[in-house]
C-alpha cells in the first residue's frame, strides 16, 4: 500500500534541506493548481511506495496567505496518511504554534526537532519525552544539514502512516474556551469526521471565511462566537491564538532547558554589523555591486557572449583548440546532405537561432541564481527586504524588488527570474510586470541611435531613458496597487529575520538548477515558437511578382513589411507612422538591439555599427526630434523581447496574468509615447489638434489614477474551486 506523507513546518526551519535529504534526486517540482505557489513532491529514498509532499512553509493555518490556504486545502482535502512536522529547535516556541494546529487535523503527526547540532553547541536541551507527552505525538531529534536522525524520523512517519489510526489532540486550552469548543463540536456531528471536529470547530469559531467551502453544511455558531467574545472580551480569532501560545508557554519550561543565558550568538554579531543603522546601506550597496558586477558585468557577460557568439555563433576557443559553433556545424552538415536553401535557412536562422535565444541566457542566469540562492539561504535576503522596505512599499513593491530591477538594468530575463525570491504573491506579480521598464543592455543601442541621430549626442538622453523607466515603475506601482487585480489581497509586512547560517553547496546548486531548468522548459517553447514565426514573416514575401524567400536586403518586400504598412497608422498619433518604424519596433521583439539593425537594412545598409551611425542622417531626415523621443519611449516601455516574455510567462504561470502584463506594458508605452509626442509637438510648434486634446485628457486621467484613494482588502481572494478542481 502506498502512503503519502506531508512535510509541514515554518519557513526557514530547514524543511527544504530535509526534503532534499529524504528524497534525493527523486523530485517533481511543479505548481499548485491555480496559484503560483511551488509544489514539490518526491519519493522517499529506498521506499518507492512512499510519496513525500513538501508543503509551502507557513506559520499558521489562517485563511490570509496563499501558502497557508494551499497547505490547508491539501491537508483537509487530500488527507495525507501522516504529517512530518519539522520544527526549528532553536526557535521552538513559535514553531510549536503551527504544530498545535496540525495536531487538530486528526492526521498522525511525527515531530522532527531540527538543528539539534546547533542546540547542542549552545548548550540547550530539549526533553523529547516530555514534549511528546504534552503534544501527543512522536518526537525525533534531527539535524537535516548533517543528516542525523532523518532516517528515524522518516521511518516513524511511515510506520504511523501504515497503522492508519485516528488521533486526538491532547493539548488543551483554558476551561472556558474548551467548553465553547465542545459545544461547536457537538453541532458538527454528522458533518465532519470525529477526529477532524476540533479543527473545524475552531475554524468556525474564528469566523474563517474559507472553511465553508470544505464542508457539506455549515452550522450556525454565532451564539458560541458571541459567548466566547463576551467571556474573553476579545475577538474569537485572537482568543484562540492567545490560548495556543498560553498552552505552549505553559509546557515550554518543562520541555526545554536553556544553556548559557543571554550570550550573543554568531548570528547576532553578524546582524549587529549588517543591519546597523549606519553600516547597513553601505554594506547593502557593496553586496549589490558584487552581485551585479559578477553576474552581469563580468562573468555573466562572458558567459552570455560565450553562449551567444561562441556556441550559438561562429565558434569558440577551448584552451586554444577552436571549437566551431553550433550554427557552423549544422550548416556544414546541411551542406553535406545537400539540403534545400529555404529549409537550411529555416533550420539555421529560424530554429537554431531560436534555440540559441533560449539557451544563450542560461549561463548568465545560472551565475545569478547561485548568488540568489546563497543570499536567500544565508538569511541576507530577508534583511534586504528589511532595509529597502521603506522605499518600495510606497508603490506596492517589496524591498526585495530591488534585486530584480538592478539585474534588469543588465538583462530583463534574469531580472524577471530573480523575482522568485519575493514570497508575497502581489509584490511578486507587480515586480514581474515592472522590471522590464528599466532599460536593459539591449536597449542601449536604441538610445544611442536616437541620441546620436536626432539629439546630436546630447548627454541627457540616456539618463532620461532611465528616468522614464523608473518613473514608469513608480507610477505603475501606485496605479496598479489600487486596481481590482491587486488591491484584492492583504499583505502584512510582519516578517521573520532568520538567523544567519552557512548554506550547503548542494542546496545552493540544487536551487540554481531548479530555477534554470524551469526557465528552459517553461519559457523555452514560447521563445522558440515566436522567433520562428517572426523569422518566417521577415524572410518570406513578394519579390518580382512571386511569393518566395527573400534576401536579407529585401526586407521591404517581406510579409512583415506588409503587416508594417497596415499597422503603421496606429502609430501615426505617436509621430512615427512610417512603416519602417513599425517594422523596426516589431523586430525589436526578437531582441531589442535588432531595432538598430532593422533600420540599417530598411535605409539601405546591409551592416551598421551598434549605434547605427551610418543611418543617423537618413533617420534625422525622416522624423522630428519629438517623434524620435516618442519612438524611444515606446521601445523602452512596450512588451519586452520574446525571451523576457517567456520569463514573464514562466513566472506568472498563468495565461491571463501573462497577457495582462504584456498588454499593460504595451498600453502604457502607447499612452506615454502619445502624450510625449502630442504635448511635445504642442510646446515646440504650437499646433493643437484633436490628438493633443486626447493626450491632455490622458494626462489628467493618469493623474487621477495616481491620486485616487486606496483601501487594503481584508480577505484573500482565491479561486477555491480552481485549486480544488485540478487535483
Amino acid at each position: 500500500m502506498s502512503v503519502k506523507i506531508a512535510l509541514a513546518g515554518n519557513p526557514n526551519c530547514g524543511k527544504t534541506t530535509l526534503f532534499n535529504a529524504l528524497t534525493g534526486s527523486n523530485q517533481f517540482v511543479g505548481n499548485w493548481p491555480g496559484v503560483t505557489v511551488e509544489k514539490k513532491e518526491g519519493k522517499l529514498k529506498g521506499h518507492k511506495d512512499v510519496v513525500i509532499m513538501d508543503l509551502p512553509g507557513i506559520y499558521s493555518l489562517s485563511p490570509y496567505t496563499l501558502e497557508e490556504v494551499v497547505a490547508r486545502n491539501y491537508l483537509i482535502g487530500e488527507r495525507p496518511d501522516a504529517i512530518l512536522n519539522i520544527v526549528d529547535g532553536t526557535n521552538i516556541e513559535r514553531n510549536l504554534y503551527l504544530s498545535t494546529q496540525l495536531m487538530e487535523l486528526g492526521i498522525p503527526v511525527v515531530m522532527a526537532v531540527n538543528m539539534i547540532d546547533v542546540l547542542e553547541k549552545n548548550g540547550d536541551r530539549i526533553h523529547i519525552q516530555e514534549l511528546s507527552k504534552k503534544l501527543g505525538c512522536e518526537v525525533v531529534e534531527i539535524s537535516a544539514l548533517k543528516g542525523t536522525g532523518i532516517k528515524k524520523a522518516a521511518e516513524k512517519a511511515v510506520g504511523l502512516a501504515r497503522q492508519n489510526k485516528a488521533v486526538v489532540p491532547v493539548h488543551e486550552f483554558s476551561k472556558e474556551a474548551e467548553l465553547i469548543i465542545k459545544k461547536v463540536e457537538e453541532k458538527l456531528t454528522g458533518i465532519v469526521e470525529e477526529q477532524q471536529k476540533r479543527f473545524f470547530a475552531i475554524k468556525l469559531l474564528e469566523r474563517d471565511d474559507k472553511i465553508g467551502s470544505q464542508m457539506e453544511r455549515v452550522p450556525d455558531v454565532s451564539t458560541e462566537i458571541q459567548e466566547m467574545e463576551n467571556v474573553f472580551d476579545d475577538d474569537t480569532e485572537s482568543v484562540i491564538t492567545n490560548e495556543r501560545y498560553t498552552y505552549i508557554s505553559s509546557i515550554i519550561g518543562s520541555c526545554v532547558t536553556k544553556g548559557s543565558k543571554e550570550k550573543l550568538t554568531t548570528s547576532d554579531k553578524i546582524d549587529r554589523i549588517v543591519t546597523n543603522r549606519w553600516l547597513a546601506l553601505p554594506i547593502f550597496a557593496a553586496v549589490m555591486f558584487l552581485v551585479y558586477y559578477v553576474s552581469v558585468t563580468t562573468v555573466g557577460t562572458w558567459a552570455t557572449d560565450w553562449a551567444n557568439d561562441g556556441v550559438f555563433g561562429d565558434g569558440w576557443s577551448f584552451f586554444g583548440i577552436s571549437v566551431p559553433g553550433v550554427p557552423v556545424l549544422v550548416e556544414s552538415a546541411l551542406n553535406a546532405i545537400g539540403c534545400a536553401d529555404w529549409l537550411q535557412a529555416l533550420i539555421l536562422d529560424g530554429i537554431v537561432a531560436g534555440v540559441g535565444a533560449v539557451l544563450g541566457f542560461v549561463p548568465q542566469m545560472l551565475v545569478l541564481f547561485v548568488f540568489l540562492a546563497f543570499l536567500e539561504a544565508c538569511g541576507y535576503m530577508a534583511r534586504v527586504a528589511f532595509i529597502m522596505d521603506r522605499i518600495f512599499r510606497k508603490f506596492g513593491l517589496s524591498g526585495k524588488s530591488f534585486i530584480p530591477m538592478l539585474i534588469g538594468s543588465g538583462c530583463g530575463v534574469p531580472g524577471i527570474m530573480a523575482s522568485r525570491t519575493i514570497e508575497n504573491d502581489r509584490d511578486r506579480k507587480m515586480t514581474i510586470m515592472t522590471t522590464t521598464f528599466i532599460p536593459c543592455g539591449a536597449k542601449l543601442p536604441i538610445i544611442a541611435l536616437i541620441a546620436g541621430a536626432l539629439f546630436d549626442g546630447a548627454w541627457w538622453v540616456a539618463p532620461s531613458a532611465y528616468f522614464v523607466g523608473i518613473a514608469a515603475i513608480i507610477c505603475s506601482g501606485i496605479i496598479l496597487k489600487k486596481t481590482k487585480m491587486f488591491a484584492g489581497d492583504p499583505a502584512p509586512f510582519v516578517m521573520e529575520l532568520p538567523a544567519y547560517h552557512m548554506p550547503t553547496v548542494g542546496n545552493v546548486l540544487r536551487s540554481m538548477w531548479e530555477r534554470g531548468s524551469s526557465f528552459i522548459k517553461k519559457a523555452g517553447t514560447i521563445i522558440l515558437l515566436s522567433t520562428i514565426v517572426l523569422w518566417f514573416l521577415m524572410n518570406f514575401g513578394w519579390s518580382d511578382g512571386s511569393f518566395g524567400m527573400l534576401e536579407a536586403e529585401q526586407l521591404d518586400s517581406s510579409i512583415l513589411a506588409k503587416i508594417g504598412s497596415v499597422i503603421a497608422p496606429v502609430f501615426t498619433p505617436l509621430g512615427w507612422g512610417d512603416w519602417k518604424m513599425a517594422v523596426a519596433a516589431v523586430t525589436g521583439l526578437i531582441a531589442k538591439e535588432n531595432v538598430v539593425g532593422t533600420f540599417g537594412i530598411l535605409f539601405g545598409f546591409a551592416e551598421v555599427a551598434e549605434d547605427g551611425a551610418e543611418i543617423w542622417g537618413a533617420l534625422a531626415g525622416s522624423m522630428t526630434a519629438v517623434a524620435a523621443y516618442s519612438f524611444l519611449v515606446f521601445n523602452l516601455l512596450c512588451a519586452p523581447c520574446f525571451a523576457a516574455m517567456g520569463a514573464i510567462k514562466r513566472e506568472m504561470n498563468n495565461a491571463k496574468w501573462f497577457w495582462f502584463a504584456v498588454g499593460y506594458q504595451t498600453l502604457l508605452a502607447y499612452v506615454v509615447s502619445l502624450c510625449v509626442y502630442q504635448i511635445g509637438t504642442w510646446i515646440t510648434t504650437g499646433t493643437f489638434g484633436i490628438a493633443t486634446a486626447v493626450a491632455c485628457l490622458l494626462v489628467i486621467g493618469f493623474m487621477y489614477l495616481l491620486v485616487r484613494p486606496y483601501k487594503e482588502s481584508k480577505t484573500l481572494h482565491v479561486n477555491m474551486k480552481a485549486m480544488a478542481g485540478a487535483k
Partner: protein
Amino acid sequence: MNTLNKIPCGKTVKVKKLTGEGPVKRRIMDMGITKGVDVFVRKVAPLGDPIEVTVRGYELSLRKADAQMIEVE
C-alpha cells in the same frame, strides 16, 4: 497609553493589548506577539522604518504603522 512603535531601541516591554482587526492583527499574533509576552525592541531599519524586535527568542521585523496596533506597558 504606549504603543510599540514609540518604544526606543534597547528596551523590553510587555504587550498589554492588540487593537485593530483582520489579517494584520492575526499575522502579528501568529508570529507570537500576544497578550503578556515580552518584546525587546532591537533596532530600527536604516531608513527609519520598519523596526526589528525580539519576541519568543527570535527576530521579527514589522512596520511602525503595524506596531502602532500593539499596546504595551
